[in-house]
């Protein structure tokens, strides 16, 4: 009897310990992935010339075009770099094949801008296992098995936009949120960042959050709808300039003065801002994070230690800097917070 009890006791303890370890491992897994730790890269030091493979997701919108140009411009400064580029045309399964083809060509380093996070994870891990260093840029992957991840935090971007809006409103008023595509990581993270700020001010009332699919047309329609529903809107938080510029048009159509509004570094928004004398701010999701990523690639091949995670700083453009960034001659969809020389502009 006592024997059985002992065994039972041991089993219970083992179970508790097991559960505890399991809980701990779960907790560890749930911790934030992004840490500013330095990665030793001496094992990847290679004498030039270097062959760098860039597996791009696509150049299907203006942001991605500028981003790609920044990467090419930066690598062009290094004559010892041979850049091999593939374009997955937004298809994750094609991007996996693209990476395999790049590896087959014998690259010294892989730079990848994933279509979506999860599906590219296994191939990136496999490339790392082959001893080829990987730099991930813009969208991340679902593991931390890479040398460096370079992006610009959308969460911080949303926070910066919201902070400016709160300051403009003196900490109180009715605001509406205009997001991008529901479920898309950049859109959701920007909204999360904004809500983090708004939640700290009890007098700021968030009337509604609408998704506008990064479209000026949709932004205008949603805003017009909100203007009918709510008699008083003191501020508009728009996650990007696309839905923001549409929202401005809705105010104009309704003959209501445009309240303080947020946006990003798109020329279309700057033009509206200037001609309509808006009270506005633009926070960029810098396209030159591509250039930073390119520099990281070079550092790794030189054996210089790099950071495991880099959050490229956002540029906050207020009324004072507006003229510096606005280009009345340039197309509407250009991203003005760039470091592209004339010959590299699209």
């Amino acid at each position: 009897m006592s024997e059985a009890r002992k065994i039972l006791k041991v089993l219970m303890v083992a179970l508790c310990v097991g559960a505890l370890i399991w809980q701990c491992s779960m907790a560890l897994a749930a911790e934030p992935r992004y840490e500013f730790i330095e990665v030793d890269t001496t094992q990847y030091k290679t004498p030039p010339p270097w062959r760098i493979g860039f597996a791009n997701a696509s150049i299907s919108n203006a942001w991605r075009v500028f981003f790609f140009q920044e990467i090419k411009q930066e690598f062009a400064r290094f004559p010892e770099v041979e850049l091999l580029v593939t374009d997955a045309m937004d298809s994750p399964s094609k991007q996996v094949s693209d990476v395999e083809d790049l590896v087959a060509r014998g690259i010294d380093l892989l730079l990848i801008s994933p279509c979506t996070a999860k599906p590219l994870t296994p191939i990136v891990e496999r490339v790392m296992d082959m001893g080829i260093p990987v730099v991930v840029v813009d969208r991340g992957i679902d593991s931390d098995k890479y040398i460096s991840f370079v992006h610009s935090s959308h969460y911080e971007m949303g926070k910066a936009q919201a902070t400016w809006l709160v300051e403009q409103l003196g900490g109180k008023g009715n605001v509406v949120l205009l997001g991008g595509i529901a479920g898309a990581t950049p859109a959701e993270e920007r909204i999360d960042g904004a809500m983090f700020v708004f939640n700290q001010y009890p007098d700021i009332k968030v009337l509604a959050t609408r998704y506008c699919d990064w479209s000026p047309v949709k932004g205008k329609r949603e805003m017009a709808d909100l203007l009918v529903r709510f008699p008083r809107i003191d501020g508009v938080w728009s996650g990007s300039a696309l839905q923001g510029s549409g929202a401005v048009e809705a105010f104009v159509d309704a003959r209501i003065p445009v309240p303080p509004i947020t946006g990003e570094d798109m020329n279309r928004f700057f033009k509206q801002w200037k001609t309509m004398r808006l009270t506005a701010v633009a926070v960029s999701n810098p396209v030159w994070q591509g250039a930073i990523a390119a520099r990281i690639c070079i550092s790794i091949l030189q054996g210089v230690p790099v950071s495991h995670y880099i959050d490229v700083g956002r540029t906050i453009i207020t009324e004072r800097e507006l003229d510096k960034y606005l280009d009345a001659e340039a197309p509407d969809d250009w991203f003005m917070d760039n470091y592209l020389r004339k010959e590299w502009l699209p």
Partner: protein
Amino acid sequence: MQGKIEVIGKKMFYSLNLKTLEETKARQTVAWLLLLATVVAGIITSPTFSRSHNIINVLRQAVALGLVGMGQTFVILAGGIDLSVGSTISLTSCLSAGIMAGRGEMVIPAILITFAVGICIGAANGFAVSYLKVPPLITTLGMMTIIQGMTLLYTRGPVGRITRGYAYFSEGYIGPVPFPVIFFAILFALGIFVLSRTTFGRHLYATGESEDIAHQSGIKTRLVIFMTYIICSLSATLSGLFLASRCGSGDPLMGVGYDFDSITVVLIGGTTLAGGRGGLSGTLAAIFIMSILNNILNLLGVFAFWQWIVKGLILIIALSTYRIKY
């Protein structure tokens, strides 16, 4: 009287079949010659191309399109078309990885549920086309948007995680050959056997050639057409399962482009859009043409949009040679 019509029908059917058999062979030869040309182009232009590592890559990259292209061949041979395969791939990749969610005990249930969904899609397509007589283009176009909607309801982004064991489906090796390639080869051989050696295969060709004559010859054409959609949907499901294994998760965009690519390989392979002529052997050549083309253009660093242009050119070139001959 009934018997007499049947005999006449059978006679017509067999005489037609003899003629189409020769045509089919000639067309498939063209496809294989094109493949040969592509391979030679690859060997000449890129030193990497003929390395064993790269060849294994090409073979593995061909599997996803190969599986769905096989199913599409069945449908087109019977005179139909299936536009819903791309979204079926997306849905099945999401479902399988989502249900699995990294749990080993859920692998079999996930595969079974995914197949059940695949069969339902095929049955719905087949029923609408063969029994309700809705044109295949419209049925499957409608089905495509329905499945897209269902996929987005299930998940708005990449979903789920596969198990280490399930990764064998895409990454495993038997000797020096990747497992998926062997799996694909066996399935393809089975497909060729069904088309050329079984009654169902003969009935399928007859139905594609002329549904009326086939029907009068006593062939259950409705059932044949119904079955082709189920086969097609199942092959798309297999593609989805394979891609989930390859990418480690599902994605609502996984199947983008596979609908038109699968039709393209069938056409380059010498099967006519009208049905009744062609076969799997040509499709196989075309699948390798597409896979090798993608590989060569990547190896040469040719810009992505050129890949679309080259694909389109090959399609037109292939079909124009068929036109000249007959």
